[in-house]
């Protein structure tokens, strides 16, 4: 793509690096306190929260993998539209309440909330471990997104020297996350999302024009790629579409990087206003998906200059190839930078969220007399360790492993739905019920994925002579709910640590 593109790419990368380090001084606080380092001092207003939270949806991997699904599998990839729509409405209803409880009790993590709400250390540890394991593969996939963008620059990949840019980029990220905490990704997300907006809007206007307009674009697609299918006694991709959308929507705000973004808001009003504003992001998401169709019709998969990229990264290379094919060199540089920087923000927030969970909910209960300074230091070191681990994972293990692990992560994280969301509304849930439900849901979901050889999270449920291929996470969380509520009803009142407005267990 020429020198101009590479110069722009490196320049933008340098810019966000400087912002990342300067961020430590932004609305300065005592960075030896966990809520200062790991929640930005809970001082983020409407605009910063909007970028930070919306950024959770627009990760590098979203930009790469969602169009890749549309490119490869067709219409089913669009499930992300109803998914995002429902997730934000659900967030609008539930999250301001969650923020209120977290703020009143000084909770830093979702596990804090569950532990305090149900007065159960066991449940807190369970939530923390689930959340950490669900986040790690997600973090690793951000690296895959960045790797694909770097490959688009035309730098050599594969051998150690080829991995060098990726390693350097991530070490820089690790350094400023260590020193600035959540302030770094919050500040960078302003640049990142602006870039992504510009790139998507440009792509939505310029590329269809090159392909002869949207009408021609859809005429050129094979019919099979444009519709969902369903046959007698089999709900087919229609059912899969619906369950994937609902299951993913229930799971989105359970991920620790999302709760971290919410807890960092200044007040409940900021959360509420944000949830009302965030659906606007979703419109853009529709155009991101159509990039997959555009790449297919443009025929980048048949062009010899992109054969190497497709061979190395499969459909994940489609968007990068499309950008290189359709944009002039300098703008392709901006587009690839947007993807690579799009990996930095969520990767930083994810590592901070996982580190907060480790320090607060696993390390703290094990040791006595931990000072705030020590707790924060542990969190900083863990966030560093997680990123080094993620690089090692991506460089040493085949990428299919990270994708399969991420499928499982989605199934695991949704099991927190009863404890984290429903508990705000159902006061009679019991910790014993939640633990039993978690065990059943996690085991069933993992078994369903295993029965498909971990290749897909869609499980063909056979019932009444019908087959319902659907999202294993949704099926398993239904089982979880039945067990949770059933066991809760069986336990007599006043025996168990009841939820609600009575004394919440102090976490620190």
């Amino acid at each position, binding site marked *: 793509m020429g020198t101009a593109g590479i110069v722009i790419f490196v320049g933008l990368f340098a810019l966000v690096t400087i912002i990342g380090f300067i961020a430590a001084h932004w609305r300065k606080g005592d960075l030896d306190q966990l809520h200062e380092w790991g929640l930005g001092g809970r001082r983020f207003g409407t605009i910063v929260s909007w970028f930070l939270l919306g950024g959770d949806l627009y990760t590098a991997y979203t930009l790469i993998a969602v169009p890749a699904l549309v490119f490869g599998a067709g*219409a089913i990839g*669009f499930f992300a*539209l*109803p998914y*995002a*729509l*429902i997730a*934000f*409405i*659900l967030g*609008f*209803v539930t999250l301001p309440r969650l923020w209120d409880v977290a703020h009143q009790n000084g909770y830093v993590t979702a596990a804090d909330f569950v532990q305090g709400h149900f007065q159960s250390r066991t449940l807190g540890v369970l939530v923390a471990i689930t959340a950490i394991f669900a986040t790690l593969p997600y973090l690793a996939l951000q690296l895959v997104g960045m790797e694909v963008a770097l490959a688009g620059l035309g730098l050599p990949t594969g051998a150690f020297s080829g991995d060098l840019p990726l390693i350097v980029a991530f070490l820089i990220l690790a350094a400023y996350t260590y020193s600035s905490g959540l302030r770094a990704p919050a500040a960078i997300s302003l640049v990142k999302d602006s870039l992504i907006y510009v790139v998507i809007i440009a792509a939505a206007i310029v590329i269809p024009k090159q392909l002869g*307009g*949207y*009408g*021609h*674009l*859809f005429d050129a697609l094979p019919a099979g790629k*444009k*519709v*969902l299918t*369903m046959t007698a006694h089999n709900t087919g991709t*229609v059912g899969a*579409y*619906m369950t994937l*959308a*609902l299951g993913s929507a229930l799971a989105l705000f359970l991920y620790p990087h999302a709760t971290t973004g919410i807890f960092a808001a200044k*007040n*409940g*009003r900021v959360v*509420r*206003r944000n*949830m*009302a*504003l965030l*659906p*606007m992001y*979703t*419109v853009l998401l*529709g155009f991101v998906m*159509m990039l997959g169709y555009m790449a297919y019709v443009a025929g980048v998969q048949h062009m010899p200059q992109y054969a190497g990229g497709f061979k190395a990264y499969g459909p994940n290379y489609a968007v990068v190839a499309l950008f290189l094919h359709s944009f002039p060199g300098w703008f392709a540089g901006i587009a690839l930078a947007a993807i690579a920087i799009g990996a930095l923000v969520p990767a930083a927030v994810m590592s901070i969220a996982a580190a907060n969970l480790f320090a607060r909910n696993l390390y703290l209960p094990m040791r006595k007399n931990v000072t705030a300074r020590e707790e924060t230091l542990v969190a900083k070191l863990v966030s560093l360790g997680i990123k080094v681990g993620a690089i090692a994972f991506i460089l040493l293990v085949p990428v299919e492993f990270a994708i399969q692990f991420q499928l499982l992560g989605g199934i695991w994280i949704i099991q927190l739905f009863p404890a984290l969301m429903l508990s705000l509304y159902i006061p009679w849930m019991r910790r014993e019920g939640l633990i039993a439900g978690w065990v059943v849901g996690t085991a069933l979901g993992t078994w369903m994925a295993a029965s498909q050889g971990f290749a897909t999270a869609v499980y063909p449920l056979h019932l009444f002579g019908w087959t319902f291929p659907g999202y294993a996470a949704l099926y398993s969380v239904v089982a979880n709910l039945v067990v949770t509520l059933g066991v809760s009803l069986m336990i007599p009142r006043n025996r168990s640590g009841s939820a609600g407005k009575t004394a919440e267990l102090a976490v620190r």
Partner: protein
Amino acid sequence: MKRNRRRILIYVVLLLVCIVALAAPLYNRQTPRLWGMPFFIWFQLVWVVVAAVATAVAHRAAGDQN
């Protein structure tokens, strides 16, 4: 009382928006086309805008209280 009723109305509307968004059989078709896009695509894009407006109205109606 009046406030509670308004709140319930808001939740019902938001729930309906979600149900329509999930009801794939409803919009899983190619025609009529708009701006060259199949119904499947443009209906969902329009519905996202509907959802955004509904949420914004709900936010207004619930009051921007703290």
